[in-house]
């Protein structure tokens, strides 16, 4: 197996395993642990195996084509520094998985936990292995997302939800900044390849865009690593299960920020802007975090602030921009991960075994859990920087770096003093952690008697503490080669000499260490009385709560500003919205028309008075329909039909027989449909509004009239301009030439619909079917307006007449109405069916086809409704339109799939001639079956729409009888048309 393949495998394994983990049963704790553990160990194994390749500044690369047009490739890239992170991610990941096995309660849904956990592991690996800076941002955001999901794992707790939301908002914002920063860097360098970027340090630093790029990249890094002033999200992220805190919020994810700083250190560091921003942010975080940590009463809160402080230390080191400081930073990243992860696990054990993490309630636990206590004390000592532990070594390097003489007197003084103070605080909170929890009197008021955890739950801590000790005592033969590999990949081959030995002789750094240690112990002693009182939160700055400021900003943006914007620009009214749409639709083309139209060739040639007359009628109908639409609906509808007929004749005139047929038929159906709907609309009377309102309405009408006029003029100009120009060569010739050769039909339009563009038609009829079903289901729950429920006026008059005449019974007049036409309509039924079949069969060669035939067929049905009345038809005919729709769609689909089965692309059709007795040679194309599907669906859809509406007329009297307020149940239980 090649190294690059292994790299891909290491990245893909966690994601694949995350999917598997999500699918395991709820109680499969052991299976989940085996899965996650195996993945982590496999990743660890791959990392160890690959170490020789990167040990001396080597790089393992794997490129996969992504978007070659944009010169974007997916690149996996492993060098010494990302190797170190890879080890942390997989190694600590494995230990945390083991720990989580015992930490998670059997009641917790483990598949979700391990799925998110593994997805995070994959994202983090992807982040450190990215060799493309855009890809890096994507994985960066993925870690934010998975972190969000993990913090909110116990989503029934409000603090978990709030913490998760805050973490996502802050880190997501940073990620957005980072993306823009990376795009800027990509612009400067001309490539998104990390290797190219790393080789262009001078180009980047000298670019005029350097400062914005730096600020944006720092925004990403500082938010992710919880640096001041973005630190506040991390303590709230402690609502996550402790394994998550140990893994994400101490060892790996929060390190992504400093990872990024180290990664871009070679190309961005060394400028004044970098020095001041990064160092100041780091130093402020170091001191503030440590100070706040002292006064936390929650164990995890203490550790969270301590993490913030240690990340500040690393950031400070990176800000100093010297190679040796960077060595110290990388070293401290690894050291901090080991001791802090073990401390979080210890805090989790204490929580698990005592039921609380509150320092005020805990004390004297040493006698109950001596092993855990010892381990936690060693780890705390490492955190405080006690000699012979790994934390001491990197802190000593930090002190040595701060003590370097700088040209700036302020820096010269501030750095070493700040470092010492921060370290002193670290000693204090470490002492508080150890002394407060493990020593003193027996704890009181605990919900259970504490005892040692299962041995395997302690094992991860043991391993981590062992590493702390081994690295702290014999660094030269343990960490040195790996650190060297990491350092050389960042600072290059000319890395100055550094010593990892424990003893450097008496020097300034040692003096600072001693001051910090002794000072810390004294300070703890001095503060002991105050701390024993158990006041939560640091004095002096207790009021300065990042959370509160964050919430206020969020509220302002998402509520106040949003409301204001909505009030200013939003409307629920349809008319202004449509007006804006039409304004845009008129305005944008108008601006193009003015500049691009060219000459318009006005010719009178070929003028036909008959056609002009036809359109005079059409125009009058349209204008009158528009004018009558408000008060005289029936008139308007009839006039609309007039315009439809003119349109239809226009199609005939200009050689479109298929369109004419379809238009005519649809015209009939539409008119019937709207007629059926008219009964449910309110009577419109002249409104009685006052003069001012009428004036306003009139003004609005004029305004709309102007816009509508402009739209019409625009359409006229465009239509005329296009029509009088020569048609450029297009795809039409192909269809005309090949309709018969390839499609087996001479009616080109129909061949296009059922053969060449059959896939479009399939989509088309699907839409039609969906609309029909929507109409049907909407009408099932139809509640007519109160005043429309009663019988229409005409029927009332007729019934009164029947009542008065002794020989008549009620309803006779309605039944006798138009008796002769209705008999004719009844008799027309078979004729219409024959017409439909005729149109259908000739469709492939002559005007006609499935659409037209389908509508004819449905007209046949609706005529029966008009002739005999709804009840009469429904007693005699079961039409089952939903089945027509379903079988039509299936049939059409079947033709398509059949072609695929025999090895042709979807929707390919075949045709040949068949000899049928008495009829002769007929062309038989598989497209005909497709057209049959179209036919069936159009029949079903049209009939369903029409009869669903027609059926309402026999439902309403019943609803009216059931007294005025119609209850939902009565209406819905009243089943509409019998449709099965």
């Amino acid at each position, binding site marked *: 197996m090649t190294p690059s393949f292994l790299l891909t495998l290491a990245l893909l394994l966690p994601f694949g395993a995350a999917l598997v983990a999500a699918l395991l049963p709820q109680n499969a704790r052991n299976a989940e642990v085996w899965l996650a553990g195996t993945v982590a160990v496999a990743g660890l194994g791959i990392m160890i195996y690959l170490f020789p390749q990167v040990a001396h500044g080597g790089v393992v690369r794997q490129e996969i084509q992504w978007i070659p047009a944009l010169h974007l490739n997916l690149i996996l890239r492993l060098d010494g520094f990302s190797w170190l992170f890879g080890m942390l991610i997989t190694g600590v990941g494995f230990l945390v998985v083991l720990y989580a096995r015992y930490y998670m309660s059997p009641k917790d849904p483990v598949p979700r936990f391990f799925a998110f956990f593994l997805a995070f592991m994959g994202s983090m690996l992807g982040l450190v292995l990215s060799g493309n800076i855009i890809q890096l941002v994507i994985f960066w955001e993925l870690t934010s997302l998975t972190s969000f999901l993990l913090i909110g794992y116990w989503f029934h707790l409000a603090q978990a939800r709030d913490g998760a939301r805050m973490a996502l908002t802050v880190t997501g914002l940073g990620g957005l900044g980072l993306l823009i920063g990376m795009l800027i860097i990509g612009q400067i360098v001309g490539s998104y390849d990390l290797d190219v970027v790393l080789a262009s340090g001078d180009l980047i630093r000298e670019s005029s865009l350097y400062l914005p790029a730096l600020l944006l990249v720092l925004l990403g890094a500082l938010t992710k690593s919880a640096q001041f002033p973005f630190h506040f999200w991390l303590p709230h992220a402690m609502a996550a299960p402790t394994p998550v805190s140990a893994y994400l919020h101490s060892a790996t994810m929060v390190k992504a920020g400093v990872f990024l700083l180290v990664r871009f250190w070679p190309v961005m560091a060394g400028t004044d802007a970098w020095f001041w921003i990064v160092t100041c942010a780091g130093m402020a975080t170091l001191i503030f975090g440590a100070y706040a940590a002292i006064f936390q009463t929650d164990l995890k809160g203490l550790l969270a602030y301590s993490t913030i402080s240690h990340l500040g230390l690393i950031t400070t080191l990176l800000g100093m921009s010297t190679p040796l400081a960077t060595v110290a930073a990388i070293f401290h990243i690894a050291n901090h991960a080991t001791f802090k992860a073990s401390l979080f696990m210890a805090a989790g054990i204490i929580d698990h075994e005592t039921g609380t993490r509150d320092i005020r309630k805990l004390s004297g636990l040493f006698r109950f859990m001596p092993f855990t206590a010892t381990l936690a004390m060693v780890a705390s000592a490492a955190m405080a920087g006690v000699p012979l532990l790994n934390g001491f070594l990197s802190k000593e390097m930090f002190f040595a770096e701060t003590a370097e003489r700088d040209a700036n007197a302020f820096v010269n003084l501030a750095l070493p003093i700040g470092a010492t103070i921060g370290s002193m605080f670290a000693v204090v909170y470490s002492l508080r952690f150890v002394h407060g929890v493990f020593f003193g009197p027996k704890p009181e008021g605990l919900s259970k008697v504490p005892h040692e955890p299962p041995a395997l739950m302690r094992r991860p801590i043991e391993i981590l503490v062992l590493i702390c000790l081994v690295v702290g005592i014999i660094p030269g033969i343990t960490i040195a080669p790996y650190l060297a590999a990491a350092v050389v990949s960042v600072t290059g081959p000319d890395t100055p000499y550094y010593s990892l030995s424990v003893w450097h002789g008496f020097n300034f750094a040692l003096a600072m260490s001693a001051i910090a240690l002794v000072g810390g112990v004294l300070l703890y002693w001095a503060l002991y009385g105050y701390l024993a009182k158990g006041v939560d939160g640091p004095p002096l700055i207790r009021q300065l709560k990042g959370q509160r400021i964050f919430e206020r900003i969020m509220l302002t943006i998402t509520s106040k500003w949003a409301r204001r914007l909505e009030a200013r620009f939003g409307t629920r*009214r*349809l*008319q202004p919205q449509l*007006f804006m749409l*039409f304004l845009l639709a008129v305005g944008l083309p108008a601006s193009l028309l003015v500049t691009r139209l060219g000459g318009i060739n006005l010719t009178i040639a070929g*003028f*036909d008075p008959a056609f002009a007359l036809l*359109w005079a009628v059409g*125009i009058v109908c*349209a*204008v009158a*329909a*528009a004018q009558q*639409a*408000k008060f005289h609906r029936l008139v*308007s509808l009839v006039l*609309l039909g007039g315009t*439809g007929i003119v*349109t239809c004749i*226009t199609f005939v005139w*200009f*050689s*479109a027989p*298929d*369109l004419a047929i*379809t*238009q005519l038929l*649809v015209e009939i*159906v539409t008119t019937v449909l709207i007629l059926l*709907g008219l009964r*449910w*609309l*309110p009577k419109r009377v002249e409104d009685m509004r006052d003069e001012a309102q009428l004036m306003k309405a009139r003004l609005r009408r004029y305004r*709309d009239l102007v*816009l*509508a006029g402009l*739209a019409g003029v625009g*359409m006229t*100009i465009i*239509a*005329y301009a296009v*029509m009088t120009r020569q*048609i450029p060569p297009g795809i*039409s010739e192909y269809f005309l*030439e090949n*309709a*018969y050769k390839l499609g087996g039909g*001479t009616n*080109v*339009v129909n061949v*296009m619909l059922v053969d060449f563009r059959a896939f479009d038609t399939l989509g088309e009829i699907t839409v039609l079917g969906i*609309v029909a079903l*929507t*109409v049907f289901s*909407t009408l099932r729950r*139809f509640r007519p307006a109160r005043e429309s429920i009663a019988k229409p006026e005409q029927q009332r008059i007729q019934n009164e007449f029947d009542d008065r005449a002794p020989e008549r019974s009620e309803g006779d007049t309605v039944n006798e109405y138009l008796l002769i036409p209705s008999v004719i309509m009844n008799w027309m039924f078979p004729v219409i069916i024959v017409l439909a079949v005729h149109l259908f069969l000739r469709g492939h060669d002559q*005007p006609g086809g499935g659409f037209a035939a389908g509508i004819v067929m449905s007209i046949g049905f609706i005529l029966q409704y008009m002739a005999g009345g709804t009840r009469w038809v429904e007693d005699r005919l079961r039409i089952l339109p939903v089945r027509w729709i379903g079988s039509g769609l299936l049939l059409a689909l079947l033709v398509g799939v059949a072609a695929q089965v025999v090895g042709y692309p979807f929707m390919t059709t075949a045709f040949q001639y068949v000899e049928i007795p008495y009829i002769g040679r007929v062309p038989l194309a598989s497209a005909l079956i497709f057209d049959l599907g179209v036919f069936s669906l159009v029949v079903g*859809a*049209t009939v369903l729409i029409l009869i669903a*509406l027609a059926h309402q007329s026999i439902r309403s009297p019943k609803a009216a009888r059931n007294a005025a307020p119609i209850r939902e149940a009565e209406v819905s239980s009243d089943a509409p048309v019998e449709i099965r």
Partner: protein
Amino acid sequence: MELVLAIGIGVLTSCGVFLMLRPRTFQVIIGLSLLSYAVNLFIFSMGRLKVGAAPVTASGTIDPTQFADPVPQALVLTAIVIGFAMTALFLVVLLAARGVTGTDHVDGREQR
């Protein structure tokens, strides 16, 4: 011929747009129908106007210039059917809204 049809399309568009901006649902449905006539004719006219040249070919080799453009026709044919579906759906929504809100104003309530 072209000019007459172009003016016809323009007038239909104007009437359609004007009606769609009106407050009553029935006005909007008529407007929508008029606008779809205009749009269908417009698309159709993009294939240029030819008299007596229906795209019904004979078997064998043919001369494409002898026939009207079938592509806009195929587009418009489906547009007519979909236009019907749209009208139907809108009509039903209109009726349901009228039943639920008690008014036929497009916003579901009378403007104050």
